[in-house]
């Protein structure tokens, strides 16, 4: 965690302490009431009845002349006593029952869960009222009545927590290490079960205080001689209009305690502001079985291609129209003819410690029509942000600067800073996106068909409902799904990962886009499924003439598919160029490191990989100079000064002649790259492009 994260954490916890202050005050007043109270709360003085606030009675007196302030303080004491007793009983009982049941599982768990469910679905206030109704008022009966229902939410929360952990790899590991049930429950299950219960308790304080006051107000809680807030209010009721000091202070006291308790509960609950009531109703989000699907197997991924000739033919025709006929003189901002997306000096920053922190810094890349560009880098290298930022698909807090031109020449459209309306003319029409986690990227409550239909309508291709559905089925067929009609009726959780990824591709194709952006499209999949999907993407590129950006952490995956590659490290581009030459002769030490990490087919078993020291994860501005310097084997003095610029780099002399005239330039950002010094006259690199 960075220094900023700690700072934020501290400020947040300071605010939490602030919120908890009223509760601490409540507890303190309750404990010290006999010391703080100026008078005996039960001492009547009929001569001074209903006297307004004065020096002698700061909050006035009631109809019997009792000191109102002392009664408020003693009221806190009673509330505190009952609250503490109820919490102690219900927390202990609830957590124990829940933890043991959750750990044991089986029929014990099922029975206990049923009992808990029933207890939770009984109305607590009614139970308390009924019990007091038959037992009579009084502190002891109050505690019994409230504990009878208060334990259930704790049991439910603890049980859900423990049951969720029961089969986790973490407990499996402990069992394998030889830990017995006592140790597992005591040291590894109880603490995580207690934590959310304590969070819930912070709200429960308010509920109990409110409950005690309400019962007393109804004459069924604390009997009259004792001072209690709710009961003070009912006694003051006849003087509501005349003696305000009887009506306001007890109500304010209750409200403050309950409000602080609710606020604290929301603050402590996971997800910053999650109300605790949600944990009661749904202690954990429901978990569903993943993709055990119901579809028949695909016969052949490619067999359906011909069937979709009409859809693909029209798409490639449109793509052909967009293709410039001859070499056009590009404007000064476009890199070369045939460029579809030209990204320059793209930076992405997020709010951080009062300022902003960049995760992508001055990245440049271009995508040519009909070509596939791979963005490669490790987790946290900013590759996804760099690819999605032009299309506004980042967190709304992200600040994107720089330039991203879609299209070339006069009709080029600036994407950075585009408004929502402009975005909708681009997203889904000219650009389609495939996300990494296909299960999360599909709305679980809508059918596959509903997703694709919507995409078709958004792209302006839909007509009446059945016409839209026909386009949808065509699209699903185009991506090699064998049973488009059935798939359209299915939900995401009923499909396998590979099928869902095909669905995402179908959605992306709905607008007949010029560009497809795929974020780690195959990362969660088996190798054979991965190979099929890569084949599908290659086929779509060939048939539809579509350009693509493929984001991946694995160089081996992209070499099958991509024409050009951009290697990113710590939010910056470190190397770019045609895939074949970059892989044959990587110029940047980081690219070389990535290549070394790929298993080699002809290596002898047991061959060690050459690895890079250190770890990734730094941001572009965390290290002065080149961000890779701490891990770099060939770092030289200038590397510490400032980040190297991305400069054109002449291919090695042995490269085939075709590469020397290749439309895509090799570029590298490295001071120590020996070739870099010889590539331009005067030893100064020429900065190309803008």
């Amino acid at each position, binding site marked *: 965690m960075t220094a900023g994260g700690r700072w934020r954490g501290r400020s947040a916890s300071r605010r939490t302490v602030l919120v908890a202050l009223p509760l601490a005050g409540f507890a303190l007043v309750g404990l010290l009431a006999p010391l703080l109270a100026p008078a005996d709360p039960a001492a009547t003085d009929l001569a001074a009845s209903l006297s307004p606030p004065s020096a002698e009675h700061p909050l006035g007196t009631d109809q019997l002349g009792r000191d109102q302030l002392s009664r408020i303080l003693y009221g806190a004491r009673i509330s505190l006593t009952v609250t503490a007793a109820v919490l102690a009983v219900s927390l202990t009982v609830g957590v124990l029952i829940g933890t043991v049941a959750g750990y044991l599982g089986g029929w014990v768990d099922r029975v206990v869960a049923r009992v808990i469910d029933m207890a939770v679905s009984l109305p607590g*206030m009614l139970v308390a009222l009924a019990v007091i109704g038959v037992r009579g008022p009084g502190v002891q009966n109050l505690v019994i009545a409230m504990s009878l229902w208060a334990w259930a939410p704790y049991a439910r929360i603890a049980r859900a927590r423990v049951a969720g952990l029961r089969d986790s790899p973490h407990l499996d590991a402990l069992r394998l290490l030889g830990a017995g049930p006592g140790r597992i429950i005591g040291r590894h299950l109880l603490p995580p079960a207690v934590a959310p219960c304590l969070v819930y308790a912070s709200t429960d304080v308010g509920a109990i205080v409110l409950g005690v006051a309400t019962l007393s107000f109804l004459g069924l809680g604390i009997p009259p001689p004792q001072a209690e807030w*709710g009961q003070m209010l009912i006694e003051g009721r006849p003087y*509501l209009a005349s003696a305000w000091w009887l009506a306001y202070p007890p109500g304010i006291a209750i409200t403050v305690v309950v409000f602080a308790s609710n606020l604290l509960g929301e603050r402590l609950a996971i997800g910053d502001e999650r109300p605790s*009531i949600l944990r009661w109703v749904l202690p954990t989000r429901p978990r569903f079985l993943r993709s055990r699907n119901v579809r028949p197997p695909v016969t052949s991924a490619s067999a359906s291609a011909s069937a979709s000739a009409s859809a693909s033919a029209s798409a490639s025709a449109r793509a052909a129209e967009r293709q410039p006929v001859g070499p056009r003189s590009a404007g000064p901002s476009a890199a070369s003819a045939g460029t579809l997306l030209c990204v320059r000096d793209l930076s992405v920053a*997020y709010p951080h410690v009062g300022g902003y922190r960049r995760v992508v810094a001055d990245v440049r890349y271009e995508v040519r029509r009909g070509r596939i560009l791979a963005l490669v880098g490790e987790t946290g290298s900013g590759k996804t*942000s760099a690819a999605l930022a032009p299309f506004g698909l980042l967190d709304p807090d992200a600040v994107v600067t720089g330039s991203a031109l879609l299209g070339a020449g006069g009709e080029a459209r600036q994407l950075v800073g585009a408004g929502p309306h402009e975005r909708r003319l681009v997203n889904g029409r000219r650009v389609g996106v495939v996300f990494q986690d296909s299960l999360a990227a599909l709305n679980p*409550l809508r059918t596959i068909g509903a997703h694709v239909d919507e995409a078709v309508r958004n792209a302006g291709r839909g007509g009446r409902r059945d016409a839209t559905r026909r386009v949808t089925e065509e699209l699903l067929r185009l991506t090699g799904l064998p049973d488009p009609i059935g798939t359209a009726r299915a939900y995401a959780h009923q499909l396998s990962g590979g099928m869902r990824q095909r669905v995402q591709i179908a959605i*992306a194709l709905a607008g007949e886009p010029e560009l497809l952006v795929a974020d780690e499209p195959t990362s969660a999949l088996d190798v054979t499924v991965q190979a099929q999907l890569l084949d599908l993407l290659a086929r779509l590129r060939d048939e539809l003439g579509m350009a693509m950006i493929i984001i991946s952490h694995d160089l081996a995956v992209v070499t099958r598919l991509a024409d050009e590659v951009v290697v990113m490290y710590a939010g910056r581009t470190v190397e770019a160029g045609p895939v074949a030459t970059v892989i044959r002769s990587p110029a940047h030490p980081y690219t070389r490191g990535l290549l070394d990490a790929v298993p080699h087919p002809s290596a002898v078993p047991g061959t060690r990989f050459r690895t890079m020291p250190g770890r990734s994860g730094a941001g572009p501005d965390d290290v002065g100079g080149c961000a890779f310097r701490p891990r770099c084997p060939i770092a030289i003095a200038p590397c510490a000064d400032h980040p190297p610029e991305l400069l054109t780099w002449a291919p090695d002399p042995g490269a085939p002649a075709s590469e020397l005239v290749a439309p895509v330039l090799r570029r590298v950002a490295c001071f120590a790259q020996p070739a870099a010094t010889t590539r331009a006259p005067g030893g100064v690199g020429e900065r190309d492009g803008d």
Partner: protein
Amino acid sequence: MASGYLTRWTLDTVGVLLALSVGTFALVLLARGDPAAMLAATRAGRPATPEQIEAVRVELGLDAPAPVRYLRWLADAVTGDFGLSLRTNTPIGPEIVERIGVTAGLVAGAAVIALVLGVGVGIAGAVLRRGLLRGALRVAALLATSVPAFWLSYLLVLLLALRLRLVPTSGMAGPATWVMPMLVLGLPAAGALSRVVAVTLREALDRPYVLAAQARGSSPLSIVVRDGLPNAAGPILSVAGFTIGTLLVGTVVVEQIFGWPGLGAYFVRAASARDIPALQAAALVLGGGFILANRLADGLQALIDPRLRRTSTIGPRPPRPRRTASFRTEPT
């Protein structure tokens, strides 16, 4: 599939209702004092003789063992016969029926306030990402849930009845008198509901499928309506059902304050007088309503979520995703 779910839902609901009836009946066993003695005293107008008490005991069937008494009591209760009130020596059933209408009207009005205000304010709280209004809505909602109903009623009486003289302080004679009880009952519920709506809708709108919908060019309105609200609906429905249930329970306080002759007031009177048969009757009806509201909300969830409709199967644990998904580069 769906019918299996319906069967399970019905069985669960009946089970919880039976549990309620057992609990309610068990109140007799917890009771201090002898119900037969109380009724005999009520009839005689003075402390009763042992013979009178014994006669009442036989008349009420209190000499039978507890399980038998439970079954008799339940069979009678299902037909609306709750026996005689110990306090008034009159049949309880008809009085309950009379009062149900009053309570139902009050709860319906409060529910409209709670649902409209709660869902509306909640959606606003989720859609507004930051700013003063969002914070103000949040504090107002929390404050509304924190104010005790009886004190809120004081404040409203002081403001609306005594100062502005818009409505009478109590009673139920025409629409003007409905305003305050419904507000007192509905406002706290609206506050609680709006927080749940705001948080769950915000969570639903932060999910990756919303990003995916943006990527295919869906409009913000369509995203909130098609992707956000349905996915937030589960918890919202749960809490809405719970909220309407709490409204029923809340009538206990509100009817007492504003002098409405409903079930809540009846319940409190029975509890104060330890009139056990009356208490049981009121608890059974109010508690049953509370449970039904909750169960209906849970049942509705399954209509929305196709994953819940499938009958659960216990099988091998689902494979975990190999790489953890990171859709957004979150700031640390």
